[in-house]
């Protein structure tokens, strides 16, 4: 169980769903979200593979953040880039990540996305997956679950969040230009967030 492998799994999951994410973005955006994210992780993964095998989680996440910022572009680049940088900041010096740290990282990422993008929950963005995920994670901690179990709950909440994005109209991001016409379509960014959380969860569960 290494941070490098975890990132690899996450990146490959995103790349695998390139066409799916692009199709979602064609419906309510400009049809590039999958292309953007895949370009980002294709650029990031070799850099991660080249890192030292010291399992420095913060260093690896920072490399992901910097890499995404300089390769993704669009809205997702600065948002996910900032999210990874902030998550890195929240785990500086740690090699093993417990549930509390993981929750702090997730919240730092969400705060980073909100600092950059000025969006709230309910605006049909990636936050509609990530904030419910964080809430579920918190509930899991309260219920005494471990980090991986909490993440499992978070994934389920994120999936529900994606479903919820179908019901609302967008007020941030490109889909907001569609107004009511965006209703009925799930948000590409909420979907990619969920794909990443899911890939991480699957990796951690099987490694455990």
């Amino acid at each position, binding site marked *: 169980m290494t941070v490098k492998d975890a990132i690899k799994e996450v990146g490959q999951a995103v790349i695998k769903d390139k066409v799916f994410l692009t199709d979602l973005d064609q419906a309510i955006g*400009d049809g*590039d979200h999958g*292309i*953007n994210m895949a370009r980002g992780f294709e650029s990031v993964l070799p850099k991660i593979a080249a890192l030292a095998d010291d399992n420095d989680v913060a260093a690896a996440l920072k490399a992901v953040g910097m890499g995404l910022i300089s390769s993704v*572009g*669009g*809205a997702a680049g600065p948002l996910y880039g900032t999210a990874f940088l902030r998550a890195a900041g929240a785990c500086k010096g740690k090699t093993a990540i417990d549930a509390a740290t993981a929750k702090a990282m997730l919240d730092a990422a969400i705060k980073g996305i909100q600092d950059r993008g000025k969006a709230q929950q309910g605006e049909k963005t990636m936050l509609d997956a990530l904030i419910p995920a964080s809430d579920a994670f918190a509930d899991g901690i309260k219920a005494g679950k471990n980090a991986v179990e909490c993440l499992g709950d978070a994934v389920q909440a994120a999936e529900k969040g994606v479903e919820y994005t179908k019901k609302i109209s967008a007020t941030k991001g*490109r889909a907001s230009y569609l107004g009511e016409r965006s209703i009925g379509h799930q948000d590409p960014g909420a979907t990619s967030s969920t794909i990443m959380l899911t890939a991480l969860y699957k990796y951690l569960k099987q490694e455990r």
Partner: protein
Amino acid sequence: MKKIINNPDNVVEEMLNGMTASQPQYLKRLKGFDVIVRANKKTDKVALVSGGGSGHEPAHAGYVGRGMLDAAVAGPVFTSPTPDQIYEAVKEVNTGKGVLLIIKNYSGDVMNFEMAAEMAAADGIEVEKVVTNDDVAVENSTWTIGRRGIAGTVLVHKIAGAKAETGAALADVKKAAEKVIANVRSMGMALSPCTVPAAGKPSFTLPDNQMEIGIGIHGEPGTHREAIRSADEIAQQLVDKILAENIYNSGDEVAVIINGLGATPLMELYILSHKVQAILKEKGLKMVKTYVGNYMTSLEMAGCSVTLLKLDDELKELLLAPADTPALVQF
């Protein structure tokens, strides 16, 4: 997908090299970056940097040259460039008089340009930014991200560029740009979608008898679709929406762009312009200059937008000032 390309993943790279190879008297490329700068040595003036996703050609690199931009940063098709690219452009063109970033109002563009501005500011470079948002198809409210920047952006390049050329200070160049932004509005429609090369299929489908109203410039659907109408009705519809902004009054002098989105024959743009001119004249507006052509495109989308800019004496003089760029030359 029928396109004259080699590899969907290389279109921006080859286009940029094609631009500099074709127009070396105007343009050169910043080595290792998707940044086009003027071929001529930078002059001692405020520098203008614009850019955004590719696919809007001649925007943005086509407007690099005397009287307009100093650098254009090209992202992937319809995707904002990344901060490091923009940061390099800023460093390259800065002469110590400061740099103005001209950004179209899209979440991605604003965020990436802002991050670049932070990076440049950390180096001690004076950077200001303006955000264009001329598209009246989109509601402007505090709850949304506001209107989009579309073809009106070209007039910001033109006028802020002319201002910078006079030797004006950064604050004054920014003020001129903001005055344009406050007074320019656009509205577009499309007859057919476009295909992002890497996506390989059209961004939407539109029945043979329908058109999209309130289209953007990224292949995104418009605000609504309806049965296709005559050129005169389309002109009326687009202009009405612009005039409803209530910033244009009888007697005002205006500049007009009748913009093609990429696949619209000039014949159709002139037929549209015919009616637009008539409506504006009827309204008592005085057309100082009309640009008709492909100024801000959306790949091979068929359709058009109409842009209206209200002029005062300063804006008029700057609008009519000379420019010498690949896509806009005027004496």
